């Protein structure tokens, strides 16, 4: 009897097979299948959440042999770092399915790809075997490529290609590192738990592995200067694709950074900590400034992702540099929570931009104006999400960023210059709100419809969670903290 984790993991895949089998089914049926399956998956994730995690190591483990000849096995499980991300992924996919229920163009393939992507995403976060992890990691890439190429906007082919090339170039070094870790472990195994408990590579051997992993995760996260694929991919991706890309897939990078780079080569990570920290700081500030210069709403949000992911990098680097376990826990708490909150907030923002684009066929800020009057629900949702994104207390980002900045100050006070980012993001969001939603409404958009039920259903859970996470982060932080407080390396 497979465990809850496996059921949750493979439910979407089964759903995808079902949709493939029903080749003649009408689009509505297919979308309903998507919604139901992702809803069940979400239920699974919630049940996983209710089972919680262990103080030490991984919980809800499951394992059976896959390729015993080379020490690879099907191993899944969760800890305080991965469990929140699993829940986040399940939720985002669920609302994405609701949002996408309008897609009529090749809806079969669309739903199949999304479901495939869901399995890949949950798999990436739950895999405890390096090969398994890599498999899910790459499958997500392929699905996303077809998503962008198939349902994107004007220049989608090139954007998809760029996205794919970039992240593949990014992911192959990870393969190298995985091989290095594998060959360094004794006996040879791909069991990530073993690698975490007893890092296989030490000393000079660990550094190349770390560099390879950093490269991968820096591209995936993305970190300046490896981020150029992100705006390109986002601008061309369909709204649902953007939500998944930013909400879930960017987390692969930071999750990998913690799970692989930090936990498996801790010594080398500490040695390189300052460099990574600098990278994170530069990335965060650069993302904020670049976003400030945008006039395309989607690009703007894409760049703020660079900014927010930069904070996470800073947090992880600080965790590596910190000598005091309490500070390390604070930094990691903040980083993991930031991943979750970024998923919610950016997901909501991309939905909103998608909804705007559906209505207006443009994303240029300057072509809007006064929409708050025309579409109050959309407008206020955007305001809420934007303020969450700029780190307002009481909304999702604040507790995370607070912890990251606090830990940073305690370890590397200079690096707290990164906090400038919150002012710049405030500026750019206010600019966006002011241009798009404030002022006198334009004639052109007078007849624009406000959010319909489907859109409210897609957006509502995210907004509610944004507030819930901001006011009472404890319900997530407790899970995260259980693991981060017990980390020893």
């Amino acid at each position, binding site marked *: 009897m497979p465990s809850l984790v496996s059921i949750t993991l493979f439910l979407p895949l089964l759903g995808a097979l079902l949709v493939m089998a029903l080749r003649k089914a009408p689009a509505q049926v297919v979308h309903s299948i998507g919604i139901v399956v992702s809803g069940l998956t979400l239920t699974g994730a919630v049940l996983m959440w209710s089972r919680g995690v262990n103080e030490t190591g991984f919980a809800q483990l499951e394992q059976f042999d896959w390729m015993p000849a080379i020490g690879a096995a099907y191993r899944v499980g969760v800890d305080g770092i991965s469990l929140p991300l699993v829940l986040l992924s399940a939720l985002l996919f669920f609302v994405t399915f609701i949002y996408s229920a309008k897609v009529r163009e090749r809806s079969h393939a669309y739903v199949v790809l999304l479901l495939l992507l869901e399995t890949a995403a949950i798999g990436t976060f739950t895999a405890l075997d390096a090969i398994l992890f890599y498999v899910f990691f790459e499958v997500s890439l392929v699905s996303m490529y077809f998503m962008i190429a198939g349902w994107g906007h004007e220049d989608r082919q090139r954007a998809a290609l760029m996205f794919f090339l970039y992240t593949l170039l990014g992911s192959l070094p990870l393969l190298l590192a995985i091989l290095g870790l594998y060959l360094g472990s004794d006996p040879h195994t791909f069991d990530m738990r073993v690698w975490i408990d007893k890092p296989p590579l030490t000393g000079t051997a660990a550094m190349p592995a770390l560099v390879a992993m950093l490269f991968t995760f820096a591209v995936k996260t993305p970190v300046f200067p490896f981020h150029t694929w992100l705006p*390109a991919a986002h601008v061309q991706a369909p709204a649902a694709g953007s939500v998944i890309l930013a909400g879930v897939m960017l987390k692969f990078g930071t999750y990998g950074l913690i799970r692989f780079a930090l936990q498996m080569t801790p010594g080398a990570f500490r040695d390189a900590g300052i460099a990574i920290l600098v990278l994170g700081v530069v990335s965060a500030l650069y993302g904020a400034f670049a976003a400030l210069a945008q006039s395309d709403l989607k690009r703007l949000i894409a760049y703020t992702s660079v900014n927010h992911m930069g904070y996470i990098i800073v947090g992880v680097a600080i965790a590596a540099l910190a000598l005091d376990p309490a500070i390390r826990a*604070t930094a990691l708490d903040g980083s993991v929570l930031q991943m979750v909150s970024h998923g919610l907030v950016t997901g909501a923002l991309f939905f909103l931009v998608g909804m705007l684009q559906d209505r207006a066929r443009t994303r240029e800020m300057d072509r809007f104006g006064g929409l708050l009057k025309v579409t109050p629900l959309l407008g206020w949702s955007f305001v809420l999400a934007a303020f969450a994104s700029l780190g307002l207390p009481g909304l999702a980002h604040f507790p995370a960023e*607070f912890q990251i900045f606090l830990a940073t100050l305690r370890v590397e006070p200079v690096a707290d210059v990164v906090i400038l980012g919150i002012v710049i993001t405030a500026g750019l969001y206010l600019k966006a709100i002011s241009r798009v939603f*404030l002022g006198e409404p334009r004639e052109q958009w007078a007849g624009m419809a406000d959010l319909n039920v489907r859109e409210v259903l897609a957006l509502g859970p995210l907004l509610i969670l944004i507030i819930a996470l901001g006011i009472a982060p404890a319900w997530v932080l407790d899970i995260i903290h259980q693991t981060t407080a017990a980390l020893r390396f």
Partner: protein
Amino acid sequence: MSLIASAILAPLSAAPLILLLRRLPAALALLGAGVGLLASLGLLVDASHGIGDALILPGLPDLPLRLVATPLTALLSSLVAVISSLVLVYATGYMKQDSEKPRFFAIMLFFVSAMQTLVLAGDWILLLAAWELIGLASYLLIGFWYRRPGVRSAATRAFLVTRSADLGLYIAVFILIAGAGSSDIATTLDTGGRAAVAAGLLLLIAAMGKSAQTPLHDWLQRAMAGPTPVSALLHSATLVAAGAILLIRTAPMLPPEVLLAIGIVGGITSVVTGLIALGEPDLKRLLAASTSSQYGLMLVAVGAGVPLAALLHLIAHAAIKSSLFLGAGVFQHSRDSTALTELAGAGRDRPRIFAGFALAALALAGIPPLSGFYSKDAVIAAALASTKAPILASLALAGTLLTGAYMARTLRVLWRGSGKRRDIAGLGWMGAGLAGLVILAIFLGAAFPAVERLLSVRLPENTLAQVLGLSAALGGLALGWLIPARRLLGPLLPWAQQGFALAGGLDTWMVRPALAVARGCEQLERQLYAGVLAVGRLGLGIGQAVRRSDDRVIDGLIFSLARATVNLGHRARTLQSGLIHRELAVTAVGTVLIFVPLFIALLIF
């Protein structure tokens, strides 16, 4: 439910209710604010009996959130509750005609509860959160009439400036928590040494942003774009007060050098913004500048080491300034403008309102026995008693003089000129709110000894201060009534009307550099993108080249080798192109190229 929670939750829970029901917004708002007020007063009564209250909430791991009711916080909470309740009463009338009342009252209530959280916060995280939330609330309120021109930039600017300054609070909080290992404000007040200096200066920056101190005073005047009750609340007990409150609460921790800095900033602000107020042609903007000036005086008091004086002035000012704004709001409604030229004679139209306004103005100027006299007296006495008396006291007195001058100018404008009376809807509610506040403005001075007892601190007594303060106030009033501002200011006038902005002010020093950096990033971004594409194209180009070379085989060295064989190949044309020879030649050359090094290596080693 504990009182402390009720004080916050009562207004907060009314807000969504209003949004959901969308009817009877004012009644619900008053209900929420009223319950909150009762809770706050309850806290104050408890505190006066020596009963504290505290609430610990789950927060971040190892950093729980705390709400505490000490005498000081309870007092502030009551102040906020009282002023806000009265302003809401006024707003019931003021907003009667507005179609978006629910939104207005909801945000107002949210604002109040955020402010209550701020004053009752017992730990830095909650304080910081509330600090930012009042920023949000004021952004939403200033931008309430978002369709009107100029409103969006005013709201944006208010939020941005305060948030920039908030960075100071962020970092100060980090330093304090890092030093003490706890986010409890009481615990962190023990911080000393360099950490205290750094944290103190950073707190000053944060307070300067919120309390609109020079050079960050510009946003407050622009914020007048919002509805008048908002201004009243903003300037008296909430947003702007937060800066002063912060410094009053942390005063025990601040080392002398920080105190000096605070005093000087406050003094300079009181003078500079006083001059601005004097030259200001718009009533609400004048009052806004005056707010900065008065908060400058409070900072002087803090800098002089007597936070109680600052607190008293804060309390008095809260009542006075809200009265002034509410009065101004009535004039605004009657003339549909706030420009002083338009308002000429507006007071004569409504003598009762004008009387209230005038009383408040005199109180602000510091005329006994109105409340402003006592508080201002305390400030000047504190400045005189401090070790830096020459600087602080002279600045404080200059500020007082200017206060008298601009208030007199205002009164004169409002009184003189022809009447254009017009009926106003909801005047009753407005009058009621105004009356309550004016009464407070008049009689609050009597409560000051009680406050001293409550906080168990004695103010320094100084007759000289009373004399100097009163004469400065009277002198200012006389100057303002008799001499036009144009003459008083002389060459400073244009500069004052620009808000004493240095070389374009904020725009030059912050916005433009940020935008320039942003543009630079965008440029780099384009280049990076182009670079990546170029690499892609280069790859494709190499691919083409390789294909050509493979299809038609490499020229150059190999070609010359091949030429002979090509000639030989001519006769075999019928079937084969002769390229085989060339390709074989390439193969041979390739083999040689690969293996010659091998042999050389083998022979050498």
